[in-house]
């Protein structure tokens, strides 16, 4: 079963790995052939190194400490295919439903490829450069239209932060990415309206994999808010393996929203690598509502003195959803502060994981790091594994962590009901109150309103779920379990 820890010798282990990773090898060979002419040398090298890393290691198993609570067997054995550009068409109406009210501009990717006709890039504010990453590289190669897509930050930054040695998913993405968003916010530019990056998986009868790659360069003292949004059209299984590198320059202020609202058959691994320069202030908000098997990696490195990072999240799971949050907060410089707050709501047989790792390097004196994970379990079969992990190599630091697991209190429910609020609404109110802690940590903005409404809808479903007829519950039983298929 396992691709590592195999005692039959290296050769056999390699053979097993090779066989299993066949569809990935195929995808890589195709991609390399396609891009041979157009990828610059540095990029080809980047892909090749990453590919070798991935191919040698394969997917992790639950023997791997970082994956102890998440079984990837179902992912491993599904033969995902890369999607050919243009093989699926998505209508403007379908995209309209995913719109973020109040967003400024929007880039839409369908199965990993830019859908220029669905994107909205008119009236770009001054100081914001946004285009597809592939477009920027291709333009750079032929020396075209530098103001539309200046590619000069890409070579220095792409792949510099995501760790392909440690993380095979980052390696896989780095090898196989076909497109994604490239944003550069010029020094001092203040972009008021959030940018919407919409990544759509649209099944075409096959199980599609995509490896969206996003690069965001926020130059010193710039302000920006970006929503990275994963949706499905249709109910086919798809695998999204996204990597975002976000580099915040000195005193830049950046908010990043990850919204996972794919269908319940989706596999989604997303890795957000944040690099904070001196005085930078970055907020990461992860809102996980959909997806069948979701791994949300957030990895900020506070690399400049006085940087501040908020790592805020809400995960809501029902049915057989498995939502795994892996936080790695690295304090590399003194006087930085980080705040992690994750709230989880789990119903039915859903399972959640919160792994909060804080590493304080030896130079990072006066670090102030805090971590809180609160969970609400709505059924006896729901489960949360929460694990704090502190590694502190400096001697003058303040680090705290705490986790709670609870249920909806009958006392609160009764109190609300005695005031005339019917049971489902009362339950919904209490769920929303718990979830709203996450909203309270976001600045007032269209992005906040957008996620608030998504959360509201999801929780209404959950509250109603507690009154469903037995037949509907039975249907749910038949859906796949990520644990049991292992």
């Amino acid at each position, binding site marked *: 079963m396992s691709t590592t820890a195999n005692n039959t010798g290296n050769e056999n282990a390699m053979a097993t790995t090779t066989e299993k990773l066949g569809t990935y090898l195929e995808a890589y060979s195709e991609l390399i052939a396609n891009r041979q002419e157009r990828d610059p040398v540095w990029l080809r090298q980047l892909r090749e190194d990453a590919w070798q890393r991935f191919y040698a290691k394969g997917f992790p198993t639950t023997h791997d400490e970082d994956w102890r609570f998440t079984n990837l067997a179902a992912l491993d054995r599904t033969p995902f295919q890369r999607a050919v550009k243009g093989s699926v068409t998505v209508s403007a109406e379908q995209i309209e439903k995913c719109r973020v009210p109040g967003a400024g501009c929007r880039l839409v990717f369908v199965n990993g490829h830019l859908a220029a006709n669905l994107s909205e890039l008119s009236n770009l504010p001054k100081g914001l450069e946004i285009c597809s990453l592939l477009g920027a590289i291709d333009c750079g190669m032929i020396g075209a239209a530098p103001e539309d897509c200046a590619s000069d930050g890409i070579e220095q930054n792409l792949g510099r932060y995501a760790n392909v040695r440690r993380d095979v998913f980052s390696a896989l993405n780095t090898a196989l990415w076909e497109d994604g968003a490239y944003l550069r916010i010029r020094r001092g530019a203040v972009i008021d309206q959030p940018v919407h990056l919409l990544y759509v998986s649209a099944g075409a009868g096959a199980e599609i994999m995509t490896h969206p790659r996003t690069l965001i360069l926020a130059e010193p003292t710039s302000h920006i808010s970006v929503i990275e949004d994963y949706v499905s059209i249709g109910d086919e299984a798809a695998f999204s393996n996204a990597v975002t590198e976000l580099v915040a320059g000195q005193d830049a202020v950046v908010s990043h929203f990850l919204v996972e609202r794919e269908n319940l058959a989706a596999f989604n691994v997303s890795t957000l690598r944040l690099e904070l320069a001196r005085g930078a202030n970055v907020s990461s908000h992860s809102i996980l509502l959909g997806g069948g098997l979701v791994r949300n990696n957030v990895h900020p490195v506070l690399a400049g003195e006085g940087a501040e990072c908020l790592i805020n999240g809400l995960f809501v799971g029902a049915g057989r959803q498995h939502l795994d949050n892996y936080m790695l907060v690295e304090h590399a410089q003194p006087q930085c502060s980080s705040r992690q707050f994750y709230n989880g709501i789990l119903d039915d047989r859903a399972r959640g994981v919160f792994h909060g790792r804080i590493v304080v390097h030896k130079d990072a004196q006066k670090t102030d790091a805090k971590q809180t994970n609160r969970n609400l379990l709505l059924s006896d079969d729901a489960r949360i594994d929460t694990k704090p992990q502190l590694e502190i190599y400096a001697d003058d630091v303040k680090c705290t962590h705490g986790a709670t697991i609870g249920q909806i*209190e009958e*006392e*609160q429910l*009764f*109190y*609300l*009901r*005695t*005031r*005339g*609020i*019917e*049971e489902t*609404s*009362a339950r919904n*109110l*209490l769920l*929303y*109150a*718990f979830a*709203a*802690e996450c909203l309270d940590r976001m600045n007032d903005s269209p992005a906040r309103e957008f996620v608030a409404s998504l959360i509201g809808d999801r929780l209404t479903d959950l509250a109603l779920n507690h009154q469903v007829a037995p037949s509907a519950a039975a249907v749910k039983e038949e859906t796949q379990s990520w644990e049991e298929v292992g």
Partner: protein
Amino acid sequence: MALLEIQDLHASVEGHEILKGLNLTLNAGEVHSIMGPNGSGKSTLAAVLARRETYEVTRGRVLFNGKDLLEMKPEDAACEGVFLAFQYPVEIPGIGNAYFVRSAMNAIRKFHGQDELDAMDFLPLYKERMRILEMDEKLVNRSVNEGFSGGEKKRNEILQMAMLEPKLAILDETDSGLDIDALRIVAKGVNAMRSPDRAFLVITHYQRLLDYITPDFVHVLVDGKIVRSGGPELALELEDKGYGPEADVPQALPA
């Protein structure tokens, strides 16, 4: 027709019978007080009337406005006009006071086919009633009862009652834990709500509250039954002489 008619009510908690054949009739416009020693069933009566599901009614019936109250869910009873001021008001982090009360008012309005109130209509009314209860306006947006002092919590119950305007208000030991100033303020709030259309059931352990809220009737509840009824003078007598021989008998109460 009586507003509330309780006939031969028997109720149990976890298999222990607490109410053992209680009879009581309240008419609109009346204030009744129920007094009695600890464990006599006062709070059980309040909980049954508010439809708490952990209390099992084993016999008897309760008519509210001619309807079978025991068939109602807590929210239905509330919408029909039953209000319970809790002995221990519940803290609800994350839900703002004003938002909560407006949601409750609108749930009740909806039940009666009335239009919902928007924040603009609601807030001035809410703040005005807060002033009567001498509550700090800062509490408007604070989470329900979270971090409130004991007195603030009890006043908040009365504030909710004033907003929801029930037909029957049950005050479950609202006086417990209140200092004399808070007691006076709470009583003022209750007295302001006395009306020919409304009845009160004031459950208390002490006569003190009844100095401020003068009842029309006083009932003595001992071991799950009403053993005496009388006018306000009965409260004074009880204060003087205790609950009488029935209450002094050691009772086979659950351990």
